[in-house]
């Protein structure tokens, strides 16, 4: 799967005029990267002349598809990359085109991080001997993201800043609405979970944070030697309670078949790493709410995947897989949890 010759020509002209100290730019290699069902993602190798002589550079192009796992604005994702580049291992965002003028669809371009790989979240032991090192970094980076004041980022310009008392309601209303709109059949388990969440609202966060929105195994590049190189997939970034990201990262779906955080370290160790880096204190009462919410949000994403695939809007097999396997897994995770919980309680 490649960009068309027409797209390449337009993109070359755009990049030639956009990149600093670059002229005569040519795309010398390009291919589509698999897995980005929420965006078409392409790896580009560009060559150009500069004041210092001929140069080559690796870039990533993220272009909106016809349909996706997640309906978000590309300006939001672009702002998130810009906000956290230099604060965490996050690629540099280079250019955003929010209309159809260049490639027929909105897109943005960012730095390509070479030498890394993303794990499959469904692989048993993807980080091998480096699993514990990777896991500690993973939760420390998440804490570093949570530490940043949202008003010290570009995020308030592209997303709402919620009342801390209403973080939970805003997220739950949104994702419950997605489930109501997209579920192909009645969903008694997640519907019960939504009622349970509404009946047990969490305490508000002490302060707001930028939420990555999909911080999990599989959404970062690592070098195979114990170092996280790049945190990716910021398309669901927003402002809210930092426990939302922590709960998503610790959801059983992302634990590689174990009961350990990232399949590697205890939840207590993960939380300690997050607390140390974030400067926040873990609130177990609030976390119980956000951890159940994480599974509800997952269900919403998977049910949307099923809908998009069934409606024929997007036949990417990733959507079929997510809509089938992940739906069943999260249904099971929620059912086991709430069947064992005291009546009306979160856990």
């Amino acid at each position, binding site marked *: 799967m490649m960009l068309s010759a027409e797209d390449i020509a337009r993109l070359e002209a755009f990049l030639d005029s956009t990149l600093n100290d670059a002229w005569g730019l040519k795309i010398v290699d390009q291919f*589509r990267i698999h897995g980005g069902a929420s965006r078409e993602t392409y790896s580009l190798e560009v060559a150009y002349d500069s004041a210092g002589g001929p140069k080559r550079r690796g870039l990533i192009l993220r272009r909106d598809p016809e349909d996706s796992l997640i309906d978000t604005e590309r300006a939001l994702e672009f702002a998130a990359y810009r906000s956290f580049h230099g604060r965490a291992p996050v690629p540099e965002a280079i250019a955003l085109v929010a209309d159809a003028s260049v490639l027929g669809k909105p897109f943005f371009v960012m730095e390509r991080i070479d030498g890394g790989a993303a794990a499959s979240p469904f692989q048993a032991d993807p980080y091998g001997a480096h699993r514990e090192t990777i896991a500690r970094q993973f939760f420390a980076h998440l804490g570093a993201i949570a530490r940043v004041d949202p008003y010290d980022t570009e995020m308030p310009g592209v997303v709402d800043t919620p009342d801390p008392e209403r973080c939970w309601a805003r997220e739950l209303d949104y994702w419950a609405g997605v489930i109501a709109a997209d579920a192909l*059949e009645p969903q*008694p388990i997640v519907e019960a979970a939504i009622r349970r969440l509404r009946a047990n609202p969490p305490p508000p966060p002490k302060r707001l944070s930028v939420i990555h929105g999909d911080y999990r195994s599989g959404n970062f590049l690592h070098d195979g030697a114990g170092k996280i190189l790049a945190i990716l997939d910021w398309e669901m970034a927003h402002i809210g309670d930092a426990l939302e990201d922590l709960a998503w990262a610790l959801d059983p779906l992302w634990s590689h078949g174990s009961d350990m955080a990232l399949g590697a370290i205890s939840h207590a160790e993960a939380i300690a790493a997050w607390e140390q880096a974030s400067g926040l204190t873990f609130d177990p009462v609030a976390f119980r709410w956000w951890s159940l919410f994480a599974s509800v949000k997952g269900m919403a994403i998977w049910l949307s995947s099923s809908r998009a695939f069934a409606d024929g809007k997007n036949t990417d097999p*990733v959507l079929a*897989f997510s809509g089938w*396997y992940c739906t*069943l897994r999260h249904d099971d995770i929620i059912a086991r949890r709430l069947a064992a919980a005291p009546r009306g309680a979160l856990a």
Partner: protein
Amino acid sequence: MKPSLSELLGGGAMTMATGVLPLLEAHPYGRGNATIVMMLLMLAAEEAEKQADVLAAENARLRGVFARAADAPLPEDLGAAVRAAAAGRDDSLRVSALQAENARLRGVLVALHTATEATDAPWGVALDAEIWSLLRDGAAARLVQLPPM
């Protein structure tokens, strides 16, 4: 004796793994898609064997819950829906028919479950527990397993 549907799908997955994926080393996007298709075939091989049984068993258990709720002091419309659901049956073992009936029954279950949560009366507490037991067992029965990767 012909190969079963599960065997056909499992064989297709094996062909993807051994005959197709190795040819796509230089095509990462195509290889990624082929890998997902292989995984879907593996899941389908398991699903083909058990899906009708899982749905029929769940439908029967749902009707059992509705039968026990038939005399509960429910709102009139819900009570009527519960009694009608309890009296139903699976007239066809086609998966599409079982799925349609399952969706109808699960829709009634959502309403009944909501009603049981709104009361602390013994009938509601008991039905709530029975519904959670059904949901837990049903979710476990529907699970499909990915092979180790």
